[in-house]
């Protein structure tokens, strides 16, 4: 019953402004049932406001024109009228009840995350997202891939400026996906307008939300809660694909994870570690410690020519693996795999004039993480 009531709202309210979405002036209609319901509510309350506004401002401007002092208007002296006052109190209450009913129905629907087909854990970190497909052994972080040169205006900005990531979240369409959301440091907020999902990620606590996408496509969003310096640079990209395609993708990711796991045991050459380390460093570390390892004082110390780092290998690995409590440095033990940690440690120990010559093998890191 509620649904048909909402459909009605939706149809009446989209009348005449179907182009608004395409122009990017209005809230996107979105690609889930919930987002369409929300769009319907949005347009319904918008038109309610427009009608009230036309009436109120109509009376106001009529009075301003008609009763001008300069036209010799004589002021009346009435200053109360109980029945009119009762009326203009009662009518808004009725309108509000009329809005509250469909809003309540939509909200209840949004809160019903039961019977999900897939669980994805979303973790906010300064300043990236981590996605874990629970029970599937697939997990990765998603960083903004817009190059610094575009931000600084040294290159032409491409179409998806600031809204592109290295690894999008891949989701199947037509399946109910439950999101479990939390954070490793400060409060972030995961938001994709076309999915109508916006939820705070709170350190130490877990939030839930869900989505069932109707159409395949690429949907972009951003972190919506101020989370520090690079708050503006942690986009969300969701790649919604057909269910079969998703299964194939998931299988590939699992295989890749196994390949990576095997890489732990083999002996890596310095060049390979340096190459791998540089890409990890630029994706993960450079947002704080800067691309050239110079850091940004006082929050983010320099790594280049950092004596403590150069002289103490164990300390260095420990900082990357376990992080620093109460500071911006997260623990990468579960975010990066041993190969990546070994690579990035090797890279930082041999880049920008840090010529220690140390080569850290993944096996050694793996041993440190889990004995």
């Amino acid at each position: 019953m509620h649904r048909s009531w909402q459909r009605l709202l939706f149809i009446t309210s989209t009348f005449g402004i179907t182009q608004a979405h395409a122009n990017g002036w209005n809230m996107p209609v979105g690609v889930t049932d919930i987002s369409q319901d929300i769009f319907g509510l949005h347009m319904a309350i918008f038109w309610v406001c427009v009608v009230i506004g036309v009436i109120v401002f109509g009376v106001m401007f009529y009075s301003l024109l008609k009763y001008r002092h300069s036209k010799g208007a004589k002021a009346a002296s009435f200053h109360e009228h109980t029945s009119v006052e009762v009326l203009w109190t009662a009518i808004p209450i009725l309108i509000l009840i009329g809005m509250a009913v469909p809003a309540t129905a939509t909200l209840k629907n949004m809160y019903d995350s039961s019977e999900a087909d897939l669980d994805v854990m979303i973790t906010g970190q300064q300043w990236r997202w981590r996605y874990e497909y629970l029970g599937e052994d697939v997990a990765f972080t998603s960083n903004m891939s817009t190059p610094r040169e575009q931000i600084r205006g040294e290159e032409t900005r491409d179409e998806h400026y600031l809204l592109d990531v290295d690894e999008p979240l891949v989701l199947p369409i037509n399946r109910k996906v439950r999101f479990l959301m939390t954070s490793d440091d400060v409060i972030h907020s995961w938001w994709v307008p076309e999915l109508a999902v916006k939820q705070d990620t709170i350190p130490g606590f877990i939030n839930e939300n869900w989505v069932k996408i109707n159409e395949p496509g690429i949907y972009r969003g951003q972190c919506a809660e101020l989370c520090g310096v690079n708050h503006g640079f942690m986009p969300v990209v969701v790649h919604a694909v057909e269910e079969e395609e998703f299964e194939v993708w998931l299988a590939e990711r699992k295989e890749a994870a196994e390949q990576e796991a095997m890489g732990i045991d083999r002996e890596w050459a310095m060049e390979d570690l340096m190459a791998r380390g540089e890409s990890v460093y630029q994706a993960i570390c450079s947002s704080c410690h800067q691309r050239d390892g110079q850091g940004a004082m006082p929050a983010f110390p320099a790594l280049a020519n950092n004596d403590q780092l150069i002289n103490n290998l164990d300390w260095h690995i420990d900082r990357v693996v376990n992080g620093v409590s109460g500071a911006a440095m997260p623990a990468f033990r579960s975010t990066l795999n041993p190969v990546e940690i070994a690579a990035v440690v090797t890279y930082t120990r041999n880049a920008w004039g840090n010529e220690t010559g140390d080569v850290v093998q993944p096996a050694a890191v793996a041993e440190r993480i889990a004995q």
Partner: protein
Amino acid sequence: MWSVVKSVLSALLGVQNDLNRQQDFSSGKPAAFIVTGVVITLIFVLILIGIAVIASR
């Protein structure tokens, strides 16, 4: 007592005529109005909570 409740209720709606207001203010018992106001606010909150609980079922 009933007139006090009525006055407070109409105050919550923001509707009161001058005649009643004159009576209220000549009754000279502000405490009665304040207490009634607080009680009615509490009842209002409880009703709202009740509606929210029922609606969320």
